[in-house]
């Protein structure tokens, strides 16, 4: 980073690198999500922020599918967590970075399959931090599976969808 002054005497700060971290989760194992918070495979990433740019965008794309073994609908709560020790003991929810996503909760035959894009802007990170998504089902009657599809092109056909994680300074 270099610092200059313009003709008005203001400090002009140049950031030499706008960091972007790309993580592709290759061939993730199917996760069955129950009513305990569980880390979503492929959602964990680390970024070192500079002193002056401490806004981070976090974008994670993953696949949510109906688990036919447990029911006809699903209901998830998803939240972003941060840590400075790779989630060993320092684990904190990121305030405001969470959402619900569900299938139709009334019609019993309304099966939903969906990609989900988690996108958050995070303030106040300075230094090295790890970020991850965790999720849980509303109840054990509403459990989805992640990453794996059981149907495709009109037939029963198992396919695994690679996750995509992009963390960048903004």
């Amino acid at each position, binding site marked *: 980073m270099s610092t200059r002054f313009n003709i008005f005497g203001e400090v002009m700060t140049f950031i030499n690198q706008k960091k972007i971290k790309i993580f592709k989760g290759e061939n993730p194992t199917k996760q069955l999500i129950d009513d305990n918070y569980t880390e979503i495979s492929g959602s964990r990433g680390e970024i070192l922020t500079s002193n002056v740019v401490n806004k981070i965008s976090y974008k994670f794309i993953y696949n949510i599918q109906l688990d036919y073994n447990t029911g006809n609908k699903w209901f998830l709560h998803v939240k972003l967590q941060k840590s400075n020790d790779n989630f060993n003991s320092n684990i904190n929810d990121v305030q405001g970075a969470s959402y619900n996503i569900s299938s139709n909760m009334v*019609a019993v035959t309304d099966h939903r399959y969906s990609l989900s894009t988690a996108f958050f802007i995070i303030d106040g990170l300075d230094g090295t931090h790890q970020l991850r998504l965790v999720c849980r089902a509303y109840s054990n009657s509403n459990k989805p599976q992640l990453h794996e599809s059981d149907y495709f092109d009109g037939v029963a056909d198992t396919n695994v969808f690679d996750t995509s994680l992009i963390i960048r300074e903004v």
Partner: protein
Amino acid sequence: MTYLKETKTLKNEFVVDSSNYSLQVISTTLVKYNGTEITYTPEDGATNVVYEVNFAISPYPDAQGSYLSTRVQYSDDNGSNWSTINETKVMEGTYSSASDYDWINLSYTFILSPWSGERKIRLAGRSFNTSSEFTIGRQHYITNQVGDPACPHVSIFSVKS
């Protein structure tokens, strides 16, 4: 005053063709999704290529819902032959035994391995069956007033680490 002097996202390219786009009804035959194709050569030394697409579907011509089987395809011979990237295959949508008319906005981000030279990239797909067909780009503004076709929006860029 803070400036971002340098970025590690390189060779950004975008596709949006609102004037020439027309509605596309998708049934059980595998077809390209119109408006999602882009021709791209990655930056030298790129470690990844990020391909992003956004579009919306309506449940028409049937009303019970929509099931998409979508995948990324590429062509290294200017579109004569297309290959599917298997790990991008995804089943999406919702279906009901009752008519529930789901309208869905779809947003995709794919992290692709880089390649050498020029390549065409696109999305292709089909419906699961004839009861779960869908239409890309159809809009309704008010009761039964069909709006202008809404085209897909596409971006692609290289990443260098």
